């Protein structure tokens, strides 16, 4: 239920009609989403998004225990926002490519840590053979049958199809046969072609990105969707991005979660011109996406990019997922992220409980593995609500 103070603020800001649609469960237009972005009333916007979040999930806040595998940073694409990619794997350019054995070992060595998911994202390597990608999945699957393998962004999958002369369906089927279980949401950036031409004009287009996910959903895979915000895009372009995702979700229902990602400016080509988006921009982006993406179950704050403090604050602005313990993240840290390389489960619980929420460990398909709402949880959170 929306509080009297929230009603009062929303009416003062002229957001009464939008509020009425949200409360009635009606879909917001793109113009209304832009109006919410521009409202400059953070607690009122948060209250509305929080209303939707609690209607869907109550106080449950999801996380998983995962490890990242970035097998190579060698990439033929030249995205201007990227600090991770290197043109080759010579020592001087800090490029690296793991051997198949190294990549598989990187994951299997984490067996004792109780993780449930590996998240695989790479550069678009010019020389690695198709077998490398398939065998990475197959060998992890064989050695660790219960591990969830979330691998290869739509950009990589599109690249595989072109490079190896296969259809998208063939690429996906072979990976599914090897053991792939979901695909991550990366590479979406901003769909608008004006923006893509300027920041990433040599990788999959918006239509190609969406087509990969459409195909994956048709083959029974679930997937995630991201948006890289805070560089050259306009607010209308952010909303357009979300609108295209919402349309595909209407068609397939295959997206599980929407993940806004803050652009990090260090060590890349456009960082000097565009400072990192502020936390305020992040919080309103979470809130608007929660309100606009009415057919997405989850909105995730990626604490690696955001920092623990803002990630915790986001739990009052529509976010219900804080990603995971994330062992060995490389991509954001090469872009200047100063967050720790991993959070312990206890730290995640503390962050969630002190926000007055209930931690729920999930698997990669958002099945709840365990709800941490015991008496210890209550005393740890104290009167922090």
């Amino acid at each position: 239920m929306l509080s009297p103070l929230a009603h009062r603020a929303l009416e003062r800001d002229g957001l009464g009609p939008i509020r009425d649609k949200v409360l009635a469960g009606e879909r917001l237009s793109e113009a209304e989403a832009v109006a919410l972005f521009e409202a400059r009333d953070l607690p009122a916007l948060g209250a509305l998004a929080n209303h939707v979040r609690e209607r869907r999930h109550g106080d449950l806040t999801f996380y998983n225990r995962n490890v990242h595998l970035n097998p190579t940073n060698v990439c033929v694409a030249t995205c201007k926002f990227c600090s991770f990619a290197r043109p080759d794997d010579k020592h001087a350019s800090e490029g690296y490519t793991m051997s198949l054995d190294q990549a598989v070992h990187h994951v299997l060595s984490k067996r004792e840590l109780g993780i449930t998911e590996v998240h695989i994202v790479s550069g678009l390597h010019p020389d690695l053979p198709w077998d490398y990608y398939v065998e990475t999945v197959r060998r992890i699957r064989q050695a660790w049958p219960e591990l969830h393998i979330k691998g290869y962004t739509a950009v990589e999958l599109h690249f595989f199809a072109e490079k190896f002369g296969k259809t998208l369906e063939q690429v996906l089927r072979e990976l599914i046969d090897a053991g792939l279980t979901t695909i991550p949401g990366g590479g979406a950036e901003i769909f608008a072609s004006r923006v893509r031409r300027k920041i990433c004009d040599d990788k999959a287009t918006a239509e190609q990105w969406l087509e990969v996910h459409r195909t994956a959903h048709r083959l029974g895979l679930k997937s995630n969707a991201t948006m890289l915000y805070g560089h050259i895009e306009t607010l209308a372009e952010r909303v357009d991005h979300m609108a295209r995702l919402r349309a595909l979700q209407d068609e397939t229902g295959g997206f599980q979660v929407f993940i806004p990602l803050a652009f990090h400016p260090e060590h890349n080509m456009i960082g000097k011109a565009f400072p990192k988006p502020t936390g305020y921009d992040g919080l309103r982006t979470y809130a608007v996406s929660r309100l606009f993406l009415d057919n997405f179950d989850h909105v995730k704050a990626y604490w690696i990019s955001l920092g623990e403090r803002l990630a915790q604050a986001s739990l009052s602005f529509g976010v219900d997922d804080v990603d995971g313990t994330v062992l060995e993240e490389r991509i954001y840290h090469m872009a200047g992220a100063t967050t720790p390389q991993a959070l312990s489960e206890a730290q995640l619980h503390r962050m969630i409980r002190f926000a007055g929420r209930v931690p729920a460990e999930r698997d990669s398909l958002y099945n709840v593995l365990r709800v941490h709402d015991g008496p210890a949880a209550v005393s740890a959170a104290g009167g922090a609500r």
Partner: protein
Amino acid sequence: MKLRAPAVTFLNARPLTAGLVDSPRIDLVLAEPSTCASMLEAGDVDLALLPVGALPGRDWEIVPGLAIGADGPVETVVLAGEEPPEAWEEVFLDTASRTSQILAQLLLRERGLTPRFTHMPALEGLSRAVGPRGALVIGDRAFGVKKKVVLDLGREWNRLTRLPMVFAVWAARPGVLAPEDVQELVRGAQVGLGMRTELAQQYARETGGDPEHYRRYLTQRIRYGLGPHELEGMEAFLSRAADAGLAPRATLRFADDVVRSRRIRRLVSVDTALQKGADGERLDADEAEALDEKAPLLELGLAADLRRRALHPEGVVTYIVSRNVNYTNVCTTACSFCAFYRPRSHGEAYVLDRGQMARKIEETLALGGIEILLQGGLHPDLHLEWYEDLFRWVKSTYPAINLHALSPEEIWHIARTSQLPLDATIERLVAAGLDSIPGGGAEVLDDEVRRRIAPLKCSTDEWLTVMRAAHRKGLRSTATLMFGVGEEARHRVNHLVRLRELQDETGGFTAFICWTFQPENTRLDPSDNSAHAYLRVNALSRLVLDNVPNLQASWVTMGGGVAQASLHMGANDFGSVMIEENVVSAAGTTFQMDAEEVERHIRDAGFEPARRNMRYERVGSAA
């Protein structure tokens, strides 16, 4: 019934006991250090200044915050002889203290020496310490020991471990200490530490010797705080003693000093309290406490935002360009939450000289700065004249600089060490150039909390007394709250209500700022010190402090994003562009922003940035 406590006759114990002479709660009986443990065991006394070496194997409760220790030479625990220690075949151990016996054996072993140890009274041992024999001498007998070779064991320990040595602590039989007793011991110490000059003079009259030497001993050699560094030293000592088989392994237990006296609370409706707060009606303590405990973040934020809009309807967020200058990190209060302070003899201890100050001020001016926030530790040797000279020099050399200096704690300390009344101290500081006072050192203005985390700091009343006196002299000040140190909602509310009362009286607070405890490199475990808690307490403060005009966002501890959110939940000021900050960064938090970045955050959050001075008057142009 009063508790019985033996007070040892040693000079170094007197500052901890002198203030207890007429205590309504504690009866003192004089005794030798070594008999304290046996008296406590026999039940003859309830608590005692116990040698640390007597702690292992017992379940005594240690009084937090107080100790007798040294961080370097101690003078009164020495090994003496006519030949170097390498030549000693036998060492006579003074029977007066278990701690020093263990320490002597540890330090000799560390040099690879294992002479025969024989227990013997000190004077006899000393007279026989010739040739291949040495003697341990402790306590006042060690002043001026006349031997060719004298090893100061405080110095030796410090060289070995880089840690302070703790010789004795207040310890009690389990369960006998009421929180009021702990409070009384701390009060006694505060009184006694303020009397060190007189105690030295009195001791010189009793035993002969140079009173100035004794004063230096009490103020410079011996340390009375039991803070993180001292605890580390104490634990290192006990663990080395156990490793060497000289004592059982020890588990330290501290007396819990939390008083559970709560006021009788009315049942309060959170919704009603929120409405009242949002409408600008005054909240009482029960309403504030109900909001602190139960109101959701966004509800507090919406109500606080209404108050901010009423008080600052123009949508401007101000900030100042100033520099934190910490003139010294030497401090005697050893607060458990502090990562900044160093004992005087520590390798990293410093006092800034004029050249360093000049450079910092000139850099500040070059960056458009108009203010110096000058704060430091409680240095035992810096008297009022030092500050007067410094202030006169700053104001005559850099007349444009606003001197925002000395938290109430420091002013209280200067008045005490200079033995001047508070009013006179403030008058002289103002005459020398003091412009305004920062609100630091408030921590949580509730003595239950202060006793636990900062027992040697001034009390709530003392902090407020300094502020009242300063406001009456026309000075303006800020006020702070640092929370997440294990306090409860009622403590935070007490803090806000006490500030509001004083503000009703004087109107001298220009702004309030809260932040959460940053625990790295400190010994205190945080309670909820999260960003969520910060935003809630910030919003609650806007509602309760209805008479304080400005609320600062703490981006230094919380980061720019959370600070932006706080602008929508009560805050109207972005604090200072920090050219330098040492205290919070010592505790692991290092957010940095220049003026351009501060303005970008303010604009991005939907506000217009404007530069201000300490009185919140607009100055100059924005960056």
